[in-house]
């Protein structure tokens, strides 16, 4: 009798590789020294943000300068949930994700009518308006913010952000390889043509913006959790918008591996520079130089360029 060969569904080497990295991180972290744990949490926060923006800017080609607004919403959701409603942190993160998605859909209904540069400027404007309005709301702690007194919970924080990143990678794969992906690629190359062939562009963009806002909100909530406080300045920090954008541009916008790669490239120098006196404060300048060079010479980012010029690697990198 022949035993039928067991068949695994094939997901491609990139997804397996990313899964392997995530499983190793998930298994090994409880045994690592505390300082490494903190570093890994911060690193995964960067990865989480990169994938969050990748859903919008990467997959639809709409550049958003104001994505930190969803981080801020998530952070304040966590702060408000813990401080006012007595939530456990995890529930606060889920609330952050929900509010992030809700606000993204609300904001997207208006701003997604604009294209290109106009969309980018509108997102920036929404961010700045939120940054100015939130400190005026006394229920949210006003200008002095909310202190949560959560103590130091590295493992809970780590597994929350780890789960968020795993969900993001899975969803990115599903979106890019499923039916949605065809529509998105069509929108990215020519939105009017896509509409002509029957892609419901506004609905697709809104879905992606919602997903993007949801993950940015969840990641923002975890970031506030690590700080154990929500302040107007840390909640709505434009440098996070800029870093998110830098990560996906460097790694390769709209790819599966790109945001992870971008996060490594942005995070490692970012951390290293903080330990060297003479390089202190130059992190963003170096990241900016990388972004400038990549935008001018290889606009598809590292992953896109490797795929284009190294055909043998095309199977392994997507």
């Amino acid at each position, binding site marked *: 009798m022949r035993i039928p060969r067991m068949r695994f569904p094939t997901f491609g080497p990139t997804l397996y590789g990313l899964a392997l990295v995530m499983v190793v991180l998930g298994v090994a972290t409880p045994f690592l020294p505390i300082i490494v744990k903190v570093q890994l949490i911060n690193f995964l926060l960067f990865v989480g943000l990169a994938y969050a923006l990748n859903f919008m800017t990467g997959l639809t080609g709409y550049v958003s300068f104001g994505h930190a607004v969803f981080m801020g919403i998530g952070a304040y959701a966590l702060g408000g949930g813990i401080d006012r409603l007595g939530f456990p942190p995890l529930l606060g993160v889920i609330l952050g994700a929900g509010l992030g998605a809700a606000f993204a859909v609300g904001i997207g209904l208006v701003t997604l009518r604009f294209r290109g540069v106009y969309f980018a400027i509108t997102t920036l404007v929404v961010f700045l308006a*939120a940054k100015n309005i939130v400190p005026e709301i006394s229920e949210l702690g006003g200008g002095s913010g909310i202190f949560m007194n959560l103590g130091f919970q590295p493992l809970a924080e780590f597994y929350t952000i780890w789960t968020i990143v795993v969900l993001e990678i899975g969803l990115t794969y599903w979106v890019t390889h499923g039916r949605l992906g065809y529509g998105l690629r069509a929108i990215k190359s020519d939105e009017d043509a896509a509409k002509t062939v029957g892609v419901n562009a506004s609905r697709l963009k809104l879905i992606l913006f919602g997903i993007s806002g949801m993950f940015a909100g969840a990641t923002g909530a975890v970031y506030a959790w690590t700080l154990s406080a929500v302040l107007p300045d840390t909640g709505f920090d434009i440098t996070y918008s800029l870093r998110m954008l830098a990560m996906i541009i460097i790694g390769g916008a709209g790819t599966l591996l790109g945001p992870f790669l971008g996060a490594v490239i942005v995070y490692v120098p970012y951390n290293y520079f903080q330990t060297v006196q003479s390089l202190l404060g*130059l992190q963003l*300048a170096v990241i900016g130089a990388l972004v400038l060079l990549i935008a001018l010479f290889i606009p598809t980012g590292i992953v896109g360029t490797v795929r284009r010029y190294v055909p043998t690697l095309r199977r392994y990198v997507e």
Partner: protein
Amino acid sequence: MADLGLVVADLVVGLMLGCVFAVIAHGLNVIWGVTKVVNVAHGEFIMLGAYGAYYLNVYLGFNPVLSVPVDAAIGIGVGFLFYFGLLHRELRGKDTITRETEMVTLVATFGLSLILSNAALAIFKGDAVGIRWAPETLAAGPVHVPLGGLYVAISSVAIIAISDLFLSRTYLGNAIRAYSQDIGAAQLMGINPTRIAAIATAIGFALTMAGGALLTVWLPVGITPLIGATYAPISFVIVVLGGPGKMWGSLLGGLTLGILIDVLPAFGISASIAVAVAFLVLIPVLLFAREGILR
């Protein structure tokens, strides 16, 4: 009901602030209108203009209005550098600016803004500096008009008027307008597109850095390497409000913002809500008048 004297006083300050907003956005307006490229690093060049005025004041004793021509001359050089270093390879040989070019330049200038603001932070340090230049104040009833702000407002309106005259009355100005309307047709009329785009970019940078110099009057102790992040979004909003490429649009947009930011607090609305409102005005304008308020 708000006190009328207070409202008038705020309106005067708002008008003057609006004029300075208009002039810092004007350079962006010219570059955006002509080359269709949005310079995200605009704020950083305003910042460099402000530092230019500051160092001219420290070493040569110039006041901000006097340092305008010097800053503008530097700006022309910087503009040519910017055009040939960055824009030329994106715009060369193109008849229409595609969305792809728009995005590439958007991201590239975004990288440039990160470089400039953080390099400036390393060079100038984070301490706020300022120019001590305080001409006296004109008093008319309850309204006190600081003369420094008035000089700046007059210079701003003059700069915008001159740029409008230049574009509508001179040969070079007409060539620039032709280029901004239709690159292909302009070429057929014997206009060299590279030359025109480079000159327009240089003019835009001269205006930007001159605007930075005038801005220092409003920042008596507030020039830092990070002011670009404050004034770049204001400039974007102003240009979109007025419509890219319309010279008087800068003034209209600038006055709208200046008045909203300064007059709303007189009606009991907090200052930061006023700023938020001033920014959010952009959205209805974009929804209902895509080409800006000016037709």
